[in-house]
């Protein structure tokens, strides 16, 4: 046995015994990160089987502070600082789910999810199918994702397509504080495993949050109606897409921006309705183009709306390169100008 500090000892540090914050009861302006924090708190209050697992989620509150104060409020039995091993974080969550728990795992950064890939793909995703529904996997895996924060290698990736290709998983990406709050609650309440992607460069952006679970997470949302082009995206790029719609409007092009929210399954009802109306589709994401979600959506839309298409759908994505060093990321990431360029192309203007 050791004389070193144990997790329990940590929770006796000053500052961790502050009175428990009360949950959200009315519309409040919150950052996106804080909105997730409030969603987690509510989910933990609602259901004692909700437990959090992850690296540094306790006293530190996570490197992005998304789990701030939850250790103090719920204790070390429900907010579990784990040893540094991602496969074990997910693998033990599987065991907890087996016993009726609803684990919420934090993967510290997008690039650190791969050591857990086997447990996610071969266990979490397959258990319900494998056992013909006997064993449920209501596991939520929270992943801060995407670039634009000038970070070091492995800290800016967009691995979502690996999971949208994995049958048995649901995949969510949120773009604003309200969805962050509502969808984390829905993800945790879901009896299916959910990969929940958080747009890390937008953690600090504020928005109004109504403490409600809102529309089902599998529904896409038209965040800006338009006539000429359907512009599809998710996560951090939703706000860039809105800017694009504004800019294009000034030049006489009417863009309908759709925030997918659910990347698996994709809400094709909303997508198809939009493309049937506009006849033109642009998809933008930060992930590499080849094998990204954009190709999948374009193939499906082409299959289902072929005769409505005025021109070939266009992708505006990260390039087929490993995520580049910070000084080059502005060239890799789709931005307002590249999205407008994509709109020009789908409009036949270039």
């Amino acid at each position: 046995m050791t004389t070193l500090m144990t997790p329990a000892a940590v929770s006796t540090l000053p500052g961790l015994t502050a009175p428990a914050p009360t949950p959200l009861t009315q519309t409040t302006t919150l950052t996106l990160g804080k909105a997730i924090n409030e969603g987690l708190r509510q989910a933990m209050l609602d259901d004692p089987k909700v437990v959090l697992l992850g690296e540094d989620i306790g006293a530190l509150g996570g490197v992005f502070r998304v789990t701030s104060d939850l250790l103090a409020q719920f204790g070390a039995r429900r907010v579990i600082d784990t040893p540094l091993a991602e496969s074990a974080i997910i693998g033990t969550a599987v065991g907890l789910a087996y016993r009726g728990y609803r684990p919420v795992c934090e993967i510290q950064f997008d690039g650190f999810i791969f050591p857990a890939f086997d447990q996610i793909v071969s266990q979490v995703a397959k258990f319900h199918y494998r056992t013909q529904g006997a064993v449920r996997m209501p596991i939520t895996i929270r992943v801060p994702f995407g670039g634009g924060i000038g970070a070091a290698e492995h800290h800016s990736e967009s691995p979502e397509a690996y999971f949208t290709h994995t049958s048995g998983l649901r995949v969510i990406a949120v773009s604003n504080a309200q969805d962050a709050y509502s969808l984390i609650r829905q993800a945790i309440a879901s009896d299916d495993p959910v990969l929940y992607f958080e747009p890390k460069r937008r953690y600090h952006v504020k928005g109004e949050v109504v403490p409600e679970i809102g529309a089902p997470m599998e529904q896409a949302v038209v965040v800006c109606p338009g006539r000429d082009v359907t512009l599809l995206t998710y996560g951090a790029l939703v706000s860039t897409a809105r800017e694009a719609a504004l800019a294009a409007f000034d030049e006489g092009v009417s863009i309908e921006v759709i925030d997918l929210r659910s990347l698996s399954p994709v809400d094709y009802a909303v997508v198809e309705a939009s493309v049937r109306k506009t006849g033109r589709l642009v998809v933008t994401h930060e992930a590499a183009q080849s094998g990204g979600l954009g190709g999948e959506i374009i193939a499906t839309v082409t299959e289902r709306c072929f005769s409505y298409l005025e021109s070939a759908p266009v992708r505006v994505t990260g390039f087929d390169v490993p995520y580049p060093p910070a000084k080059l990321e502005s060239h890799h990431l789709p931005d307002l100008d590249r999205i407008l360029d994509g709109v020009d192309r789908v409009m036949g203007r270039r």
Partner: protein
Amino acid sequence: MIDSSPRPVQLLSPDGERMPAGDFDPWVEDLDGPALLALYRDLVVVRRIDTEATALQRQGELGLWPPLLGQEAAQVGSARALRSDDFVFPSYRENAVAYCRGVNLTDIVTVWRGNTQSGWDPYTVNVATPAIIIGAQTLHATGWALGAQRDDVDSVAITYFGDGATSEGDVNEAMVFAASFQAPVVFFCQNNHWAISEPVGVQAHRNIADRAPGFGIPSLRIDGNDMIAVLAATRIALDRARTGGGPTFIEAVTYRMGPHTTADDPTRYRDPAELAEWKTRDPLLRLHRLLTALGEITPEVEAATQALADAAAVELRAGCIGMPDPEPLSVFDHVYATPNATLERQRTDYAGYLTSFDSSEQNPKA
């Protein structure tokens, strides 16, 4: 007491003699003649089931079978130490454990016939279904144990894995987590000396049991062909876990007397002399010798045991052959617990596609 020892702890010699083993003895004091006979009966039945399943595979009724020949005592002894509310996380080879837990015989072979990916509902018998990704289940057991700990119950998770599995990152991470949280989990490693064609020396130059203490997990190294030692060790480990003592690692030193699976050909890599040597340490033989010495074995007992085994074989065969094929559209069932529009569309399309053949009377999948 629970430190790793260089030679496996033995309570029953290959000659069938009871050996004193200090701290282990109190844990098997209850093992009188009838109790030992009951365990022996298990051994005979599970060996018969195993043989029958191998035969079924040879006859094309099963796609594959991983024989447990030689490992009966390790599996039965540990399984019989469990309480019904304990939970088992096995690999693919623990079919004797499944039997002892009450999984019905047909359900044991459903997977190997290719009808499902899991033959039973884990919650009805508190046994998870076979895990094929080597070592993955050790983390599930540890997580389940964390749950039991949080539920303030004294149920224990036990996970089974092989000597080869100890090389996988997952098994080591499971030990890290179990030690860190003092989880009520028992790591039960059957060192059967082989991982397919690789001798255990490829995985480790030290005894497998030596690994755990460095993680802060006490370990026991026992003769895995010795039913009594296995039972004692598992009881010790379970008791530690139940009383808040945390995880224990058991290395049951045994031998895979058959091929890795029915698809394997051990003659390509294994010295026959090694197998011959291990035949002398057969787990059934030695318990039979003890029982004979105890006067428990009579012609009637022999006959009854044989009848029991034969009945199991008949039941297994009938259940296996009589199993209905799964419905075509069940390929889409249970991917999700909640509705999924993309998948429903695929189901509808495929249903329509199948129907188109029905009408033209040339269903290619019929």
